[in-house]
């Protein structure tokens, strides 16, 4: 018989549901442009971080190439949208191309290096990702180089598009929000992300998820029972690469811009890593919590730090350390402390609390 869920686990799931609800109604609840940006970024990054958690949390593989796959999806859509003009065919074809590229690279890297030690794999993914990043900024005729690519997206997502017209031929307003293309774009992001996230939840709950955990806990034993560890690892690496690539496509459509800084840079990889560890490795819920906290911190902590920096401006060095640009310093410290004292992250730790008999 299965043990009853702890209060902590119920709390976490409630929090995740609440976040889902807030994201669902985000355009109506938070009516400014920046908040909608934050909400869309949270949606995309939840998928990205959850797919990374499939690797690091469920299977125990550390990869530093996750942004590379994210970038494949984003650049696939971006390049085709620019070449073929704004249309759904470009988005779908670009997304597919991104997924195919991701699968090819993931299979190659996986077969080449997943049979050796975890540490080798980490180093090789890091090297591959850095080469792709350099290539993206060098091959500027395709990728736009450092400047990236700006393009138009399908007409449905234009701010001028009217989704619903009232009797006078004006765009309908619900709760003071006009139903224009921006809303359509947001819901495109939201529902695609939701679908991908639910798909990953299914994967983890399936027997496959159990096999992955077995590999993480004891590789030799899993192999001895008869599971082909290398095949499973390569498969999960490909799966998470494909999901990351799709998330990249969605993000490219939302931003209408793709460049190394938004989808490919090493800073994003570090963000993902921080989100997974802060949220808690090995639970899909952790990805949600970690992402929300980190993205909110990214957008709003800097304001707070700016204020703090002003307050201590008379002291030496402290203003420099509290400079809003140094927010990664503090996050890095929090990250190290978390890995020491709460290796399960926020969700992992909380979910064990408050057990019920």
């Amino acid at each position, binding site marked *: 018989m299965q043990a009853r869920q702890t209060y902590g686990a119920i709390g976490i799931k409630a929090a995740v549901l609440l976040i889902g609800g807030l994201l669902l109604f985000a355009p109506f609840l938070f009516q400014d442009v920046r908040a909608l940006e934050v909400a869309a970024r949270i949606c995309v990054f939840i998928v990205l971080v959850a797919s990374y958690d499939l690797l690091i949390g469920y299977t125990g593989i550390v990869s530093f190439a996750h942004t590379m796959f994210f970038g494949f999806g984003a650049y696939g859509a971006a390049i085709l949208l620019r070449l073929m003009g704004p249309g759904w065919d470009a988005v779908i074809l670009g997304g597919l191309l991104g997924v195919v590229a991701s699968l090819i690279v993931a299979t190659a890297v996986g077969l080449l290096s997943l049979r*050796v030690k975890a*540490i080798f794999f980490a180093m090789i993914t890091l090297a591959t990702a850095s*080469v792709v990043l*350099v290539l993206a900024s060098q091959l500027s005729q395709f990728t736009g180089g450092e400047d990236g690519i700006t393009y138009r997206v399908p007409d449905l997502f234009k701010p001028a598009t009217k989704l619903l017209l009232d009797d006078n031929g004006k765009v309908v307003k619900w709760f003071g929000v006009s139903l224009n293309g921006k809303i359509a774009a947001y819901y495109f992001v939201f529902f695609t992300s939701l679908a991908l996230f639910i798909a990953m939840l299914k994967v983890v709950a399936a027997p496959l998820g159990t096999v992955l955990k077995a590999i993480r806990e004891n590789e030799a034993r899993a192999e001895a029972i008869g599971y082909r560890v290398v095949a499973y690892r390569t498969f999960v690496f490909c799966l998470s690469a494909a999901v990351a690539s799709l998330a990249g496509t969605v993000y490219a459509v939302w931003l209408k811009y793709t460049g190394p800084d938004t989808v490919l840079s090493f800073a994003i990889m570090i963000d993902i890593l921080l989100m997974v560890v802060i949220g808690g490795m090995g639970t899909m819920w952790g990805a949600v919590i970690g992402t929300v906290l980190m993205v909110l911190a990214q957008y709003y902590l800097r304001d707070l730090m700016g204020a703090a920096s002003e307050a201590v401006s008379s002291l030496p060095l402290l203003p420099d350390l509290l400079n809003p640009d140094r927010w990664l310093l503090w996050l890095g410290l929090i990250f190290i402390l978390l890995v020491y004292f709460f290796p399960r992250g926020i969700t992992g730790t909380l979910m064990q609390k408050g057990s019920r008999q």
Partner: protein
Amino acid sequence: MQQISNTLERFGGVNLLPLLLAVLAFLLIGAPSSWATLTVAGLAMGMMLFLMASGLSLIFGLMDVLNFGHSAFVSFGAFVAASVLSALGGWLASDSITLNALALTFAILAAMSFGLIVGWLFETVIIRPVYHDHLRQILITMGALIVSEQIILAVWGGNPITVHRPHFLEGAWIIGDVSIEIYRVFAFLLGLAAFIGLYLVLNRTRIGLLVRAGVENREMVEALGFRIDRLFIGVFMVGSALAAIGGAMWAGYETLITPALGGEMMIVVFIVVIIGGLGSIEGTLLGALLVGLTANYVGFLAPKLALASNMILMIIILLWRPSGLRPAAK
């Protein structure tokens, strides 16, 4: 076939690879003078890479610890040396070689002692608690890398810093139509000295014997009553100091350094260590020379390929020998 490979093995086997590469490049380049310049540049770069990578390789070999924060020591070394050199700007500008050399020595000593002290701190505070847990090791050292990069940004600012070279290392020797930068020769010699020093310590002293034994079989050495963990602190400190010296030399080589230096070098250093095989300094030297030479030759022959050349080299070598050219016996 067997005979050929035996003969090759007798003449040094994989150690011949840099030579082979040089010969191949000579045939492709055609012009002896540019070839010589490129080779010197490649050797100098290789030796600096060796300084940076040898510590990483030994640390991994001895304690199974992969320090993703290793490149932080490289960038700290670079910035500390640059600060010392600019503080001693007066000495550098003077014509006296003694003052010049003193300033340079101080800069390298500063970088080295910084590496030793911070290496000790890093080992005891960051790495000690997570000795046998690879996943957390990678995460924690990655976190430490983020923090140290941010500290560099906070202390030295985000703008590129110019590094002043000592006067007597400026310029180049012209032999026939071959021009050889003096700084490169100096970097090569320093790296060579470090290699010889390391080699002698590892192969001729009791401590070196223990280190090599520890790399081979840690449990056995511990069972014989030696404190490997103390030895490991020493190796970690020396490795960090070497990385800092490598960073200092690199700063003088590039003459313009940014806080991104550590991150850029980290990738190359990893490639060197992977190619060479973890745990042996001979392997690291081989990997470093190969990477340095390839980078320079390819940069000349096919500039477009230059950035991917290291990666291609790594893939070829991994396909041929999955655990690197000369890994320590495990």
